[in-house]
């Protein structure tokens, strides 16, 4: 492991240390150059400046600006804009740390539970407490159920309509003609004979798959409510576990719902396999929709209930025992699976966001609790200072910040979780799930309509919008099998009389200065909560969400964020006569494949010149 851009080196034992230098973390800001685009815009009628405000069928408030050359079928420029700011990080400052679970959960209502858990993990680290195995198992089930809501909602209600009959017929008539004649590969499983039938089922309001997307997520929400009270904001997450009253009834009702939705999830894999293959066959340039370098990041999630101890020092070990292995992929190569490395490499930049910098406020932490160097832009050192400004493509244009890892643009997603797990092949649990180095294998038991099946998600050769959606369909099955394994663990624990799901009730909130970080995952991937507390209250709280990574604007080095990159790489394959009939469907497919969620992308705030933390954009947009 070595960092390419950060001034950190490793000795022979693998211990990190800062490279020599006056101000090793200093960097030169590169101005964004728009002169070419502006010239083209001024002189050419077929170059269009397009403002999409708002982009619909995403969670939260996202708008998008692009410049498209309609003649060449090329996107020249793209800007992703988070249009909502709520100031959660500011609100959290000065509060009892335990309130953070409930308050930070409200950062995002699309996947609220993940924030409460990340928050309780950060607190466990700060308080120095662990979690009983039952608590660990139930936490795993919780997040798996969350994804059984999140991912299908995205695949069938948000992104799905982009592949529906009404859209394809309008934007690509020739494709629609082909669809009518093409037989599906897996019609025997999902029941649609031709691709046209399948696309019709994706139609909004009337399509079978669209309506199922509403209905089949309900059993998962029920199971979630049974265990955690409410969805999306759970009521039973506490530092040190869960306050759920566990009984056999609760476990039985949960397991039933997992099995009932598993059938649906299995079918989904074949549907998205068929959609992907159809588009690839129709025109191989579809492999370029939403493509960008294979740079991905994930924190891993679903702790081994017997390995997790809540310490920062132990993070590399318990991290690798997770059902989803933490990791960073750069150019398709796995560079690390160590949570310390992931944490060290994180930085957040606000050069193109509506925030002031915090360079005048000193650097409270030069190292993490394990002695590894961290920079002034690391979340533990960051302060959130919102300052609304005019929109300017060269300067500031979004409420989202720009998180980077090792100063490289990385993308987060449910698929990143599968990818790091597959590539690392360190996932130790093999009853149903297996990581092979190039794929993850998922064994599923027999369910009501489908026999036992083995699925294999292989690390894709090209990386694009279709692969993102396809991986998401696999990810649903993967999470449900994690949930299934964990219900079994919970049943076993019940059998041993171990039904305690939380460590303790009477906390003594420490009065001295403590730091903590929760590494967890959302429906859209990577999630961290960094907290600093002193005298029993929070003094800094920073949330980095997956959509903050994905929706980020350009960084000071001039590298655009993942949405922007993906859109710029997208060829325009739509069939249109003139600029007036152009709808931009390819751009939408590229953006939506990330499953944007803006509520948590932006969570900055500022109180009277005090610097506050700011939350970046997550799947939920602006916090």
């Amino acid at each position, binding site marked *: 492991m070595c960092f390419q851009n950060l001034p950190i080196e490793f000795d022979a034992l693998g211990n990190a240390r800062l490279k020599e230098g006056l101000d090793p973390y200093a960097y030169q800001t590169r101005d964004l150059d728009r002169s070419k685009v502006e010239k083209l815009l001024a002189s050419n009628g077929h170059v269009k400046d397009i*403002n999409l405000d708002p982009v619909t069928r995403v969670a939260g*408030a996202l708008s998008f600006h692009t410049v498209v050359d309609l003649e060449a079928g090329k996107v020249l420029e793209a800007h992703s804009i988070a249009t909502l700011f709520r100031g959660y990080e500011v609100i959290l400052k000065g509060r009892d740390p335990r309130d953070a679970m409930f308050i930070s959960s*409200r950062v995002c209502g699309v996947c609220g539970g993940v924030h409460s858990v990340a928050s309780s993990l950060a607190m466990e680290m700060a308080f120095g407490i662990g979690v009983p195995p039952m608590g660990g198992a139930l936490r795993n089930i919780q997040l798996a159920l969350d994804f059984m809501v999140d991912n299908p909602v995205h695949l069938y209600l948000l992104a799905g309509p982009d592949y529906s009959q009404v859209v394809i017929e309008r934007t690509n008539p020739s494709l629609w003609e082909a669809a009518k004649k093409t037989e599906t590969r897996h019609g025997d499983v999902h029941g649609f004979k031709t691709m046209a039938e399948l696309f019709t089922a994706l139609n909004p309001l009337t399509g079978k798959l669209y309506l199922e997307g509403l209905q089949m997520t309900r059993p998962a929400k029920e199971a979630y409510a049974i265990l955690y009270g409410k969805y999306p904001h759970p009521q039973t997450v506490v530092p040190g576990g869960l306050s759920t009253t566990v009984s056999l009834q609760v476990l039985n009702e949960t397991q039933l719902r997992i099995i009932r939705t598993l059938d649906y999830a299995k079918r989904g894999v074949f549907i998205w396999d068929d959609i992907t293959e159809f588009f690839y066959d129709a025109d191989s340039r579809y492999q370029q929709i939403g493509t960008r370098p294979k740079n991905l990041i994930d924190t891993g999630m679903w702790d081994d209930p017997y390995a997790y101890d809540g310490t920062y020092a132990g993070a590399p070990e318990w991290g690798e025992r997770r059902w989803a292995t933490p990791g960073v992929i750069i150019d398709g190569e796995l560079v690390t699976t160590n949570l310390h490395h992931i944490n060290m490499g994180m930085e957040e930049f606000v050069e193109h966001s509506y925030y002031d910098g915090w360079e005048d406020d000193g650097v409270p932490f030069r190292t993490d609790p394990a002695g590894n160097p961290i920079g002034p832009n690391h979340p533990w050192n960051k302060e959130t200072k919102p300052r609304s400004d005019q929109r300017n493509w060269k300067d500031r244009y979004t409420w989202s910040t720009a998180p980077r890892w090792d100063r490289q643009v990385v993308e987060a997603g449910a698929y990143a979780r599968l990818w790091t797990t597959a590539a690392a092949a360190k996932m130790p649990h093999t009853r149903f799930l297996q990581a092979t180095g190039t794929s993850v294998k998922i064994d599923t038991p027999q369910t009501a309509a489908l026999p036992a099946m083995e699925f294999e998600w292989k690390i894709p050769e090209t990386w694009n919008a279709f692969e993102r959606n396809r991986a998401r369909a696999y990810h649903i099955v993967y999470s449900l099998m994690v949930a299934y394994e964990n219900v079994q663990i919970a049943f076993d624990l019940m059998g041993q009389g171990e039904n305690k799901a939380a460590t303790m*009730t009477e906390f003594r909130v420490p009065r001295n200065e403590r730091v903590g970080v929760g590494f967890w995952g959302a429906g859209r991937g990577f999630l961290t909560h960094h907290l600093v507390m002193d005298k029993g209250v929070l003094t800094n709280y920073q949330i980095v969400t997956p959509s903050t990574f994905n929706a980020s604007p350009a960084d000071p080095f001039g590298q655009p964020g993942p949405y922007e990159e993906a859109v710029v790489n997208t060829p325009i394959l739509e069939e249109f006569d003139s600029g007036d009939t152009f709808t931009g469907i390819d751009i939408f497919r590229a953006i939506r494949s990330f499953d944007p969620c803006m509520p948590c992308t932006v969570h900055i705030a500022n109180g009277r010149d005090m610097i506050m933390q700011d939350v970046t954009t997550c799947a939920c947009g602006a916090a």
Partner: protein
Amino acid sequence: MENMISVPMKARVDVPLEGEISRSLPDQMGNVAGAHSAELHQRLLETGGRMDSMGPLKKVYVFWLPGMSCDGCSVSTIGATEPSIEELLTGALPGVPVMILHHYQFQMESGDHFTHLLEQADAGALDAPYIIVYEGSIPDENLTVGTEPWAAKGSLPLWAPADQRQRRSTSEWVRRLAPEAAVTIAIGTCATWGGIPASLGNPTGAISMMDFLGKDYRSALGLPVVNVPGCPPIGDDFTETVTLLLKFMNGQGPLPDFDELGRPAWQFGETVHLHCPRGAWYEEGNFAREFGGKECLAEIGCWGPVVNCHITERGFINGKGGCMVAGGACIGCMSPGFPDKFTPFYKRPPQTTPATTLSRMHGALTKPLRRTTQLERNREPRWKSDATSGWAPQYDNVTLFHRSFEYFYTRIQYFRSELPGRNEKDEEKYASGYVVPPEAAYGKHYAQWLPERRAEEARKRGTYQRPGLSPQADGFETPVQDDQE
């Protein structure tokens, strides 16, 4: 830091922002289906023949405006089942006009095509009444004049004259659409009371819909803001309220009751404690000492006894879940004042200790009496000594104390009424004529003469005794007289 509430009623009017250059619409950018969702919706319903609402209104537009929200209210709503959102959308409910939903998570179109319908509503050009639903709190956009709003949704349509193309803050949409809306509904605690974005220390000056529109606001139907609180709200609470309102607008039902804060009165009239499954633990004075306990959660910080909510009665989704049902203490998320009036969470509320002390004292008296009675009641009358359970052969070995307790208890229980099996007309009780061997059914402590006698009678007459027949059908002309005495 005090809340920065300033000039709530007059949201700023935006000026065009610099940095937004030429836009050459009207064109089809963002209109991926070639028609807006509202048109598609209308078409689907017409061809599917679902537009008969049995009243004057065929459809009602519902504009769902998200302000400073987390989208949790939308997520809750799509989980609702009483009725479900798809039933409302597809005209599946007779008497309820079809709801044409305009929601950023459901629309096919983006950008200016999305804001088009809002513009039409603003211009009074819609062909049916509309309702607005607001999710999230309303920031003070006076703090951002001339710069990027805290919460924005859309720009003015691009076919508007260049100098009118503006970024639109969500509060600006509310200001424009609320006066003509048939009903204005605030969903979720952020919109109803302010919620977390409006809590102490917030930088955006956020307030609630009620505060924003003011005391004198009335919708076109003459209603102040309707509030369906909750963080997140129960989806069913919202869809139920909307359905009832739609029925009312269509002349198919009464105007639902609302309480003094505009909440649906039948949902929020009582405290959540009154329906709590742990309520009886409270009454007996049993309180959970640690997380996961099945007792009342009052002492680990439950605010249930003072919070208006009914999640313990309705469940969260499909009748399942609910905070205290699962084991989470109430944090008052449906209440005005959330979160600051209820933090720090998990700290025992001040009124709790006096109240739980009283109920402990009450419990100390009632519990032993109940347990003794329970021991006696929890037995078949024929188990005079041990129960026949193979699970615990010594099941509840009854002592002399219990026997005498039972003796007096039974006397009181049957005081001035009949103890079965003593003086009564047995044939009426055993009229079904069952054929279980009496020995097995009753044990030797019970009068066994009747079935045997009946069997004998039946044999005498040559009739077969079948279960489930009246005595007459068994061959008895007249009821058998009690001749044992």
